[in-house]
């Protein structure tokens, strides 16, 4: 086992796995709506085409980042992770406090199905539109997964391990989705988003700091302390936001 397994590799793979579950569940809802409304052929073709493009982005961009000096790369990736992770954490805190509504997969499925059913035209045109809907959903949701895989993987040369985390999430959602054959509404999307927001924010601060020349006490162990700080702060902020929000509407 590598010496930094628990401090870097495990959090990196876990973050990509959990983030991918959130995104793949959302994409699966749309693909399921396409499959049940217009047949599985456009749904599968659209999904495979989008997955191919996403895989190509990882294969091209991932190794290319190795040519950038490590401090520059850590600063660049760190800042992007900070922006992305804190954005997710902010949204998850607001949802957990009841300020923003939770994402509803059943509603998303109903909306997509209604939109597909409202379209008119020749059967081939409808199949084409359905395929594009599946393609777009997988591509757009997959973009976030690709970013997380590349960003988390590039900072410490864990591209393949991070990709494995994302692929495992895809496989899990597909297997469960194929078994239940309905939107995966029971997945605790906001809790996962909260956890991933915490981890990505911690990675973001850590790598931005390293890129700037910060000497973290305990080196990689500091990641755990940073994640704990963001977790405790996030829970505290959610309580504070809920209290303020409920007081204002009372």
């Amino acid at each position, binding site marked *: 086992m590598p010496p930094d397994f628990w401090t870097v590799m495990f959090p990196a793979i876990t973050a990509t796995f959990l983030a991918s579950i959130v995104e793949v569940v959302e994409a699966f809802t749309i693909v399921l709506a396409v499959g049940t409304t217009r047949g599985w052929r456009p749904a599968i073709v659209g999904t495979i085409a989008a997955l191919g493009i996403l895989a190509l982005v990882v294969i091209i961009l991932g190794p290319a980042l190795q040519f950038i000096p490590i401090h520059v790369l850590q600063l660049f990736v760190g*800042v*992007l992770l*900070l*922006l*992305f992770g*804190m*954005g997710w*954490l*902010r*949204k998850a*805190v*607001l949802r957990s*406090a009841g*300020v*923003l509504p939770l994402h509803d997969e059943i509603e998303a499925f109903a909306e997509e199905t209604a939109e597909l059913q409202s379209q008119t035209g020749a059967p081939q045109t409808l199949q084409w539109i359905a395929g*594009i809907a599946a*393609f*777009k959903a997988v*591509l*757009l949701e997959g*973009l*976030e997964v690709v*970013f997380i895989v590349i960003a988390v993987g590039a900072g410490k040369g864990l591209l393949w391990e991070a990709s494995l985390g994302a692929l495992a999430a895809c496989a899990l959602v597909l297997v469960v989705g194929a078994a239940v054959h309905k939107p995966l509404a029971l997945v605790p999307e906001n809790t996962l988003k909260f956890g991933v927001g915490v981890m990505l*924010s911690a990675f*973001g*601060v850590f790598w*931005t*700091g390293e890129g*700037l*020349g*910060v*000497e*973290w*006490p305990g080196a990689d162990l*500091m990641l755990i302390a*940073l994640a704990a*700080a*963001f977790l405790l*702060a*996030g829970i505290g*902020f959610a309580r*504070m*936001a809920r209290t*303020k*929000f409920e007081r*204002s*509407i009372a």
Partner: protein
Amino acid sequence: MTIIGDVFKELFKMFVADLRLTLAILGGVILVAILLQKAWVSPLVAGLLLTLFCLVVLAEAILREVRNRNHK
């Protein structure tokens, strides 16, 4: 073309979910970089400042959204 437009919109949304939060984070990183460059703070203090700054701007972004929702 719509798909390419949507891809760029999605990429923008990924990093700029809240413009003020994004600008505050970027400002904080630049500030810490200047403090380190001028050697006004030690590398350890710079790291702690960056962490603290991120937590403060996150709290501000959350409370601002609560206030905005209250006024709607």
